[in-house]
């Protein structure tokens, strides 16, 4: 029954695609059915599930997750106030000389706003509404515009300090702790800041390459583009917003501010600006607050679903089975890394970044980090492979979400042209992935020793490492009267 968790994952993925029901409901549904079967078959102790409230409570008291509503609040303020439009208009005008002002402005807006969206799905929803009509109006063909929306929506996966990176950083920290507890290696456990710094250079290269691709694809259309000159107030608004957002994001990335405090400061500053500029009508404020509550709820529900799902998955000991399977893989660390990244890429066809972080990463990362100890490098490769998978036509998550979203809005999208428009961006991302794969130092200096290890200590074998991890993953002792 140890493979039950893999079947659960497969069934959940099929149901998500086939039914269109919210992912959090299906994660709960599959977990409940699997738990019932496990209890009926005597494989899983029923008392184990009484731990569910405690696990859910840990979500409610998480300091890190406080960033979630704050990021969403900032995103909603930017979206509902005329700030995003001002930013787009000013960027388009400023970049008009390149001949591809609108596409480049769209990507720039994606780079600024996507880190605050929290999910690719939310990004697609925002940019389909915000960017697509403006890009088409600027003369960008529908297929190219859709590809730009898909790319902009996935930028939040790689550009620090996005919500995705914050949560991936937390998941990697836990995985690294598990791996180090197993090996007793004397290296520092990675943290959020390592993730941000590791992601910075690859993300910059991704953004620049995507901008270059967008410019190459659209520069010939630039002659027809004559954007209206923004008013002086719009220039000032856009510059102030840009300074505020990039200053806060930069302060978090460089470690001067916690993500939660920066997001709170950004929200308060935008709110004060809107009040001062008399932009905040009661109706608009209520719309912003409603959006924030609803989007926060959507993201938090995924965490709840993933928490229930992983509790059942671990009850079946699938995590240990996966650890053993990865430990038994032959061919050296590179083969193991390629296998795990390939699995993550496949899962990313149907799972959004949040689901990946909370369902898949905790299972596959600890055993991978036993074989490939540079946790920051692995994390950066993971986020790059995630972003590439989301953009792989025709089944990539972002690619399909954009297509469906535009179809709902009455914009038919010819798949072949759309796929062709996505391909150069995908190749650019794969090029960065290959670069980071070949030159790990692009993601940072590697594991930092915290003490000198004894020189004559034997190097543990893969079998030893698997056994060590197995012991680490042993379930804690049951509470009195708890499990059978």
């Amino acid at each position, binding site marked *: 029954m140890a493979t039950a968790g893999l079947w659960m994952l497969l069934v959940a993925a099929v149901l998500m695609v086939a039914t269109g029901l919210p992912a959090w409901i299906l994660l709960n549904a599959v977990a409940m059915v699997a738990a019932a079967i496990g209890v009926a078959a005597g494989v899983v102790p029923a008392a184990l599930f009484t731990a569910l409230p405690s696990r859910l409570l840990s979500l409610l008291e998480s300091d890190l997750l406080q960033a979630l509503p704050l990021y969403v609040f900032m995103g909603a303020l930017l979206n509902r106030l005329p700030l995003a439009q001002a930013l787009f208009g000013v960027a388009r005008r400023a970049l008009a000389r390149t001949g591809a002002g609108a596409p480049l402005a769209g990507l720039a807006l994606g780079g600024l706003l996507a880190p605050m969206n929290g999910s690719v799905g939310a990004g697609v929803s925002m940019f389909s509404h915000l960017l697509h009509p403006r890009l088409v109006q600027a003369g960008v063909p529908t297929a190219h515009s859709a590809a730009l929306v898909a790319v902009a929506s996935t930028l939040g996966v790689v550009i620090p300090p996005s919500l995705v990176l914050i949560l991936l950083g937390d998941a990697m920290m836990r995985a690294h702790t598990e791996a180090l507890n197993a090996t007793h290696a004397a290296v520092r456990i990675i943290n959020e800041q390592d993730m941000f710094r590791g992601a910075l250079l690859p993300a910059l290269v991704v953004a620049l390459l995507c901008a270059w691709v967008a410019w190459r694809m659209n520069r010939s259309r630039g002659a027809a583009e004559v954007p209206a000159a923004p008013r002086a107030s719009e220039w000032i608004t856009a510059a102030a917003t840009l300074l505020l957002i990039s200053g806060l994001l930069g302060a978090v990335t460089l470690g001067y501010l916690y993500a939660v405090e920066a997001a*709170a400061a950004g929200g308060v500053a935008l709110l004060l600006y809107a009040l001062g500029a008399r932009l905040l009508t009661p109706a608009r404020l209520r719309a912003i607050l409603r959006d924030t509550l609803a989007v926060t709820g959507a993201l938090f529900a995924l965490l709840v679903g993933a928490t229930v799902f992983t509790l059942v998955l671990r009850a079946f000991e699938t995590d240990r089975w996966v650890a053993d399977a990865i430990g038994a893989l032959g061919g050296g660390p590179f083969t193991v890394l390629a296998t795990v990244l390939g699995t993550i890429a496949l899962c990313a066809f149907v799972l959004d970044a949040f689901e990946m972080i909370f369902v898949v990463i905790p299972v596959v990362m600890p055993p991978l980090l036993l074989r490939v100890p540079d946790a920051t490098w692995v994390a950066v490769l993971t986020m790059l492979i995630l972003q590439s998978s989301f953009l792989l036509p025709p089944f990539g998550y972002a690619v399909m979400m954009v297509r469906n979203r535009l179809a709902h809005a009455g914009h038919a999208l010819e798949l072949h042209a759309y796929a062709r428009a996505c391909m150069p961006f995908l190749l650019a991302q794969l090029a960065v992935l290959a670069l980071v794969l070949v030159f790990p130092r692009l993601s940072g200096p590697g594991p930092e020793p915290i003490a000198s290890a004894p020189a004559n200590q034997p190097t543990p074998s893969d079998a030893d490492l698997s056994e060590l991890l197995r012991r680490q993953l042993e379930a804690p002792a049951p509470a009195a009267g708890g499990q059978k």
Partner: protein
Amino acid sequence: MSESPRPDSSPASAVWLDRLVDAIDAAAMWLVLPLSLLLFLQWPLRDLVHAYSREANDAAQILFALYVSVAITAATRARTHLAADVLAHRLPAAWRAHLERAGAMLVLLPWSVYVIWTGTPMAWRALVALEAFGETLNPGYYLIKLALILLATLVALQALLVGLRPAAARLN
């Protein structure tokens, strides 16, 4: 964002329940304002005033727990939950309505009842003892445990509302 259809032809209890959940959503949405303010103030309180930052953090923790407890149901009502609508958008509307109802009645209702059943003793003990935050001893930690019961209760109520919604409204 599309709002969920109102159960106009539903039993009076369903209409009353719908309004109650609406009112809770409408009240909770404002919590993000003090939450942002408290978490923003943490920074000057810690680095400039050198006091009260832990109090601000604990108060924000309570607000956060209450906020997200209501937010899940608000997302259901606003239809913002993330879903892979890759193939399902081709399904007939009636099928999708049945699926939605099945998800509410067969998954969310039993799930939330289970969470209430297993979580209430923990929340009750915390309430009776007026449990404080472990590290700072600031009061109010029991509210976070109560928020878990609130979360599950609202999910259960919303599942009932979807289940009780007349077929015509479900197809909207």
